């Protein structure tokens, strides 16, 4: 008896399920309000269904609701299962009606949760919904999203958008998106598909490569299959050419980082002959100065955050410079002419500085933000250039030029050169050599501080920051030729480019080893580096 009842219950449940499926299918786009309820279920699959439902409902609020999920602005009340939308201004809106939520904000509102699968669904849904957005950048993004999702339902929207589009860049993106949809459609004719593949081949970037690679080769007609494989070969060759250029750019970028890290050392070690193991810590101090400046700005004037680096650059120069002068006056001046003791003393100083920062700021990384103009990537042909790297290359160039100008055209530079070339003669010409030593060391340290500002944008800011760069810095200075700034420039760029050209073949670890071996061999052959100083100054 009980068995029979259970069977009937199962049968009824089954029928109910079929009926439910049927209604869902007939009322193909379930109503917006119904779909909205799915967001309150707090399950990933229900949310996925809700996104599809809301997107397909054609409701005017659909794009707004779906767009809000990614920012965590779509909220639901677990109690009464109502869904709310928080406007960017902070106001709470009933997602079903679009009107301001009546009464008090319900307690316990939870944001709709996401995972990557849902993020892809959102991207696809938003793409189809925003093809006609007023902002061309938005339309471009939407076209890209449709290109990736290849959603056949987006075809009418694409055609409508294409008919209206005036912006050439967006139009091209729309054409490509349409091509991607057409290739996937079984109904489209072979000629249409061939045309579409040609459009995508024109695009010839990684996205296009990914799209063509994902086509199921076995299911295509022979003609199409050949067109696809031809297109893939062509795109691969195109990308490969750009890859060489890209590697060169990476090399220059790495070279500029090495240059920044080493150029201060080129002064303290190269010009003064002090083996300064605390050089890396000057870089670290510069990075921490950036952090402190940003913290102050965050708490007092968050509006000028984008200019934080402009304030950090002189501050870092001064902080590191003064610490450098203090080190020179306090320790190094007693040790001139005794390289081994200088090495040990400065190494000791580096440990002291590290631990001091660790005690002061804590051992963990501190967060240094990128100003908005230094985030993101822009592409130049097939070349992807990240803004922060580009700015660092520019910055390194400016620092190098400025340092060169100081040495050549200022009195301080003249005195520096005089003291390093012939100390006693300079002294007898009424140059205060002790003061010049301190200033030279301060200048070298200050420039290391500037490097710290730049490195804080790409590396982590922790007490160990400097250690990662000290070996490379010495390598650059010794390789480039001690006492020659141009040598440091050429040395840094050569090492950077060589490293990046070796890396694809040998891997990061072996590449670095190979480079070290090459430099050692080179130093055997030319002990004074690339640009050796000649004449009497060398022996002085």
């Amino acid at each position: 008896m009980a068995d029979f009842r259970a069977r009937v219950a199962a049968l009824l449940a089954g029928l109910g399920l079929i009926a439910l499926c049927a209604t869902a299918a007939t009322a193909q786009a379930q109503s917006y309000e119904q779909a909205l309820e799915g967001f309150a279920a707090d399950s990933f699959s229900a949310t996925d269904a809700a996104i599809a439902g809301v997107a397909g409902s054609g409701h005017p609020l659909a794009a707004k609701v779906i767009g809000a999920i990614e920012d965590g602005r779509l909220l639901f009340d677990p109690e009464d299962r109502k869904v709310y939308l928080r406007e960017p201004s902070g106001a709470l809106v009933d997602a079903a009606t679009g009107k301001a939520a009546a009464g008090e904000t319900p307690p316990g509102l939870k944001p709709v949760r996401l995972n990557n699968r849902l993020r892809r669904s959102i991207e696809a849904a938003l793409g189809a919904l925003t093809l006609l957005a007023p902002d061309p950048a938005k339309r471009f993004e939407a076209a890209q999203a449709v290109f990736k999702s290849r959603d056949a339902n987006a075809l009418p929207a694409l055609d409508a958008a294409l008919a209206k589009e005036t912006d050439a860049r967006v139009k091209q993106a729309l054409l490509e998106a349409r091509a991607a949809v057409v290739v996937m459609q079984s109904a489209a004719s072979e000629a249409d598909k061939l045309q579409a593949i040609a459009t995508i081949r024109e695009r010839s970037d990684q996205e296009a490569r990914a799209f063509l690679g994902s086509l199921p080769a076995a299911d295509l007609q022979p003609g199409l299959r050949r067109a696809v494989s031809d297109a893939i070969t062509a795109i691969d060759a195109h990308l490969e050419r750009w890859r060489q250029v890209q590697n060169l750019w990476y090399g220059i970028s790495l070279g500029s980082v090495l240059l920044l890290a080493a150029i201060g050392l080129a002064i303290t070690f190269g010009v003064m002959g002090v083996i300064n193991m605390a050089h890396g810590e000057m870089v670290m101090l510069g990075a921490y100065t950036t952090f402190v400046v940003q913290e102050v700005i965050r708490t007092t004037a968050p509006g000028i955050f984008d200019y934080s680096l402009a304030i950090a650059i002189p501050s870092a120069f001064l902080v590191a410079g003064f610490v450098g002068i203090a080190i020179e006056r306090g320790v190094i001046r007693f040790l001139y002419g005794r390289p081994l003791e200088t090495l040990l003393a400065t190494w000791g100083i580096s440990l002291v500085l590290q631990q001091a920062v660790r005690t002061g700021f804590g051992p963990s990384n501190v967060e240094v933000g990128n100003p908005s103009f230094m985030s993101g990537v822009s592409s130049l042909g097939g070349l992807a250039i990240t803004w922060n790297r580009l700015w660092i290359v520019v910055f390194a160039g400016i620092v190098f030029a400025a340092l060169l100008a100081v040495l050549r055209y200022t009195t301080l530079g003249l005195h520096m050169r005089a003291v390093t070339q012939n100390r006693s003669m300079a002294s007898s010409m009424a140059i205060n050599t002790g003061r010049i030593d301190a200033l030279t060391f301060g200048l070298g340290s200050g420039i290391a501080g500037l490097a710290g500002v730049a490195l804080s944008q790409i590396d982590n800011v922790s007490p160990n920051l400097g250690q990662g760069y000290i070996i490379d810095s010495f390598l650059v200075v010794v390789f480039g030729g001690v006492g020659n700034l141009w040598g440091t420039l050429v040395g840094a760029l050569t090492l950077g480019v060589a490293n990046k050209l070796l890396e694809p073949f040998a891997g990061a670890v072996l590449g670095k080893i190979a480079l070290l071996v090459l430099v050692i061999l080179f130093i055997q052959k030319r002990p004074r580096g690339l640009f050796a100083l000649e004449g009497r100054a060398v022996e002085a």
Partner: protein
Amino acid sequence: MTRMFLRPAAAAALLLLAVVPLAGQARAQETIKVGILHSLSGTMAISETTLKDVMLMLIEDQNKKGGLLGKKLEAVVVDPASNWPLFAEKARELISKNKVAAVFGCWTSVSRKSVLPVFKELNSVLFYPVQYEGEESERNVFYTGAAPNQQAIPAVDYLEKEEKVVRWVLAGTDYVYPRTTNKILEAYLKAKGVKAEDIMINYTPFGHSDWQTIVADIKRFGSQGKRTAIVSTINGDANVPFYKELGNQGVKAKDIPSVAFSVGEEELAGIDTKPLVGHLAAWNYFQSVDTPVNKAFIARWKAFIKSDKRVTNDPMEAHVIGFAMWVEAVKKAGTTDPDKVIDAIVGIKVPNLTGGMSEMLPNHHITKPVLIGEVRADGQFDVVWKTPGLVPGDAWSKQLESSRDLIADWVTLKCGNYNTKTSKCGS
């Protein structure tokens, strides 16, 4: 003048030196000493300092509850300074000189390997709180972090099932943990039918900071039309520039997700996480886990460390579990004698912070849940997947040829590497 001053100072110093050991001896009879062996300076200080603090907190809390066996606990903190041989020296100092009852410490595998002979020779107990590559089980060591089958393998399963990933980038720092883990994962993936051309393995030096080429390579590898994911065993400081480069080059989690085994709340503290939203980490604990016991722990930690900004992470939970297990074992044995504690601790169950009961297994590993978390914009993780129950840790990986037949059992077999094929201890 200086001389005159120096002399009394020296005398006072001498006096102090003489008195300190005496005081130490007097106290030794009424306290139980607990050794804390974590680097407080050098490269590993970034991770290990927090573990020292959490141990001090646990010991303080235990003392508030009346101590252990009627005695107060006393923490002995030493600093091995991220220097592997110094770990062994400091371990010896803790055990022979300070006579600690147990040691909680180490982070890197190489530091653990360096102290192993000391713990064996002097017969003491070490609690090791960090996820590691497995392939080890020692009588004197209790592994409260995750073994590969409690972290790496479930993470790969998740990516395959939920994200439909078919192409894999195994990126790691060049040392023993990533190498072994990647070897295990490679064998596991190949056994599942993944082709060699769909696996890219990449190693980088410690502290690698220029990720441009590698991220570009990953992008290229991921643009072949098959869903690709990064499995990252990149360690320590190298993670920040890696994630920054991913963010800068526009590698979004929805296109190429990455799952990390060494990145937790503490590591994310130094990064702007907004571009990283959706990238994954696999751990056995996240600060965001919503259980009453975890909430209490976080509140207590913030009060103890006197900062609202400090986060909690997985190795901290491992110390919480390990310390609770040790306390229970000492109570059960009625003594802190290492031999008795080692026998007593197996089978002990204590609550973990995610709402389950973790148990010490005969192979000296513990049972833990496996959680997959997604990075949120606030630097915390959102748990998107969880194993239905607790996963027992495997000391020896079944995926590797060399350890397939090995098991560890310190209760019945009294062996850490028993070969089930040849029925011999010692492989």
